[in-house]
């Protein structure tokens, strides 16, 4: 057999990809069991579930290498730039982890008496206070365990408030055509009828469409500011006024709060309920990296309906935990995802008020830097300065579609931007650099996209084969979705 220089490397790569089952050898074992000191018991025939049980027979060392190698294939914000639009993949300071691991926080039990966990309750209370300040809304609940659960809890709070004033007939929930998919899902789960509202050609919500639905059936609107187009919606205040005048309430999706921190408060626009993603705006782990948290803040009128428990400060200065008087209930067992709350509190305390201003300032500056540098390469569907992210349409070159450009970026060690969202932009590439990236990183990203553009110009088909240098090449996504094979099966022979 003739050997080419790269053959050993290819074999090595192949070996590394072998599944644990494929590494199995009869008789190998990774554990040493002590001798049995009880007589063997026969399992009755009818209690047997199956004849075979395919377990891999491997040594401890093989198992360690297998999983260590898998972990090295992980892509994370700790390894690379992650410009995933709408997800705010900012760097998560390690101090967050250190504080959350403090024994007083990490070892506290939710069933301990309040007198033993005053520090934990004070921490929750302080975070509530900070989020009230950030949102400009006086009521806060940290109970929701994730962004989507926060949305649902917020919408149920809104619904409870409508029901309490005898307006349960209001069932229409307006949702802009740029909204996150979770918005209509949350509204439908809460029993509302979803009505899609278009955007204007400049990317703001269409006020005439809102007016057309503003009647006695209108429950409210679910709105994201800045919008998922990365734009500051200039009609937001007027929209809130129209909805309120018709007797409805306004839900604010705080997914894009990173752009507003310290500069504008959603409560001041007229939002009645706002949810925030601590795992986006306040640097707690996310993206398969850990539990989220989706606190909600509300107006004084809606506060009695909030999910609980809520941390309170009593007259003697001590801290406690209470359910609001007309609460919609609990979102989980205890004080929300407590460890996540501590990380967010650490982040806010670390940066302070001036730091909040720097977050939003740099997030917006970075996004507009990318907009200015990348606009020769893509179509810009809404020609305005942006907030914390920019949405391009990858339509300038055949072959350089949003999918193909994204695949090629992987070859250069960049995570793909969000693609094909928002739905109103064809071939959408939604890029959010966040405030934690340096000028050098942004320039490297820009240069890479310029190189990819040149590749597409030279050879229309080149990008269609990308990625070329990743551990796994281009996947057949259509086949994977149409005929998924979700588990390993022994080969027939």
């Amino acid at each position, binding site marked *: 057999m003739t050997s080419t220089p790269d053959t050993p490397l290819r074999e090595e790569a192949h070996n590394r990809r072998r599944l644990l089952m494929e590494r199995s050898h009869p008789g190998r074992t990774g554990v040493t069991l002590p001798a049995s000191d009880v007589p063997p018991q026969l399992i009755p025939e009818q209690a047997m579930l199956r004849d075979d049980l395919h377990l891999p027979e491997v040594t401890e060392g093989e198992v360690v290498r297998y999983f260590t190698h898998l972990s090295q294939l992980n892509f994370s914000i700790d390894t690379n730039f992650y410009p995933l639009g709408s997800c705010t993949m900012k760097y998560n300071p390690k101090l967050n982890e250190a504080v959350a691991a403090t024994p007083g926080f990490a070892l506290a039990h939710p069933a301990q008496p309040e007198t033993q966990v005053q520090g934990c309750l004070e921490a929750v209370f302080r975070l509530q206070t900070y989020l009230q300040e950030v949102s400009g809304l006086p009521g806060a609940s940290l109970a929701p365990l994730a962004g989507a659960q926060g949305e649902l809890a917020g919408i149920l709070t809104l619904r409870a408030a409508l029901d309490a004033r005898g307006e349960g007939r209001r069932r229409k929930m307006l949702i802009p055509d740029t909204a996150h998919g979770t918005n209509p899902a949350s509204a439908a789960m809460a029993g509302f009828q979803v009505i899609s509202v278009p955007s204007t050609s400049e990317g703001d919500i269409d006020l005439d469409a809102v007016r057309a639905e503003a009647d006695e059936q209108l429950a409210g609107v679910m709105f994201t500011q800045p919008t998922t187009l990365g734009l500051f919606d200039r009609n937001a205040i007027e929209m809130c006024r129209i909805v309120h005048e018709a007797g409805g309430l306004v839900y604010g999706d705080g997914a894009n709060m990173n752009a507003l921190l310290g500069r504008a408060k959603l409560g001041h626009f007229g939002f009645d309920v706002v949810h925030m993603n601590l795992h986006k705006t306040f640097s707690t782990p996310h993206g398969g990296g850990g539990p989220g948290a989706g606190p909600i803040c509300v107006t004084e009128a809606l506060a009695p309906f909030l999910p609980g428990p809520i941390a309170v400060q009593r007259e003697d200065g001590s801290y406690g935990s209470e359910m609001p008087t007309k609460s919609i209930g609990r979102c989980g067992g205890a004080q929300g995802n407590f460890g996540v709350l501590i990380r967010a509190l650490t982040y806010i305390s670390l940066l302070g008020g001036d730091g909040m201003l720097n977050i939003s300032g740099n997030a917006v500056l970075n996004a507009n830097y990318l907009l200015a540098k990348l606009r020769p390469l893509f179509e810009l569907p809404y020609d305005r300065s942006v907030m914390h992210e920019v949405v391009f349409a990858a339509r300038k070159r055949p072959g350089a579609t949003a999918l193909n450009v994204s695949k090629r970026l992987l070859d250069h060690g960049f995570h793909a931007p969000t693609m094909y969202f928002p739905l109103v932009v*064809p071939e959408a590439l939604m890029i959010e650099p966040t405030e934690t990236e340096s000028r050098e990183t942004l320039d490297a990203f820009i240069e890479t996209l310029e190189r990819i553009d040149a590749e597409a110009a030279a050879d229309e088909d080149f990008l269609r084969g990308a990625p070329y240098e990743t551990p796994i090449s281009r996947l057949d*996504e259509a086949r994977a979705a149409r005929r998924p094979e979700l588990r390993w099966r022994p080969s027939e022979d």
Partner: protein
Amino acid sequence: MPVPEDRRYSREHEWALPEPDGLILVGITDFAQHELGDVVYVDLPRPGDRVTQNAQMGEVESVKAVSELFSPVSGEVAAVNEDVKNAPELLNESPHEKGWLIRVKPDDPAELDSLLDAAAYTALTE
């Protein structure tokens, strides 16, 4: 892209083809399947369900996104293309024929007149 002249078209990229027995065959256009990319799942109404012109009648999921399907006519669903549910790639391979979605017994066949003809639809997609 082919736009057959034997049928009418909605602005939402569905086609409606009147059949000799008075039923109307409904599907999505070649332009639509091209924009969607590889279709991996189709959610359709059931026989006997009511559909309303310009109202949502189902969903189509591609590797890019989930999109709503709108009915180009009002009426009762007489039949559903089971082949498409089992092999959604038919929508990509044969959107105007084998990839038809539903057969509708129309309330008012004159509703077709409110739809676009092939020339107008071609203009819409250019």
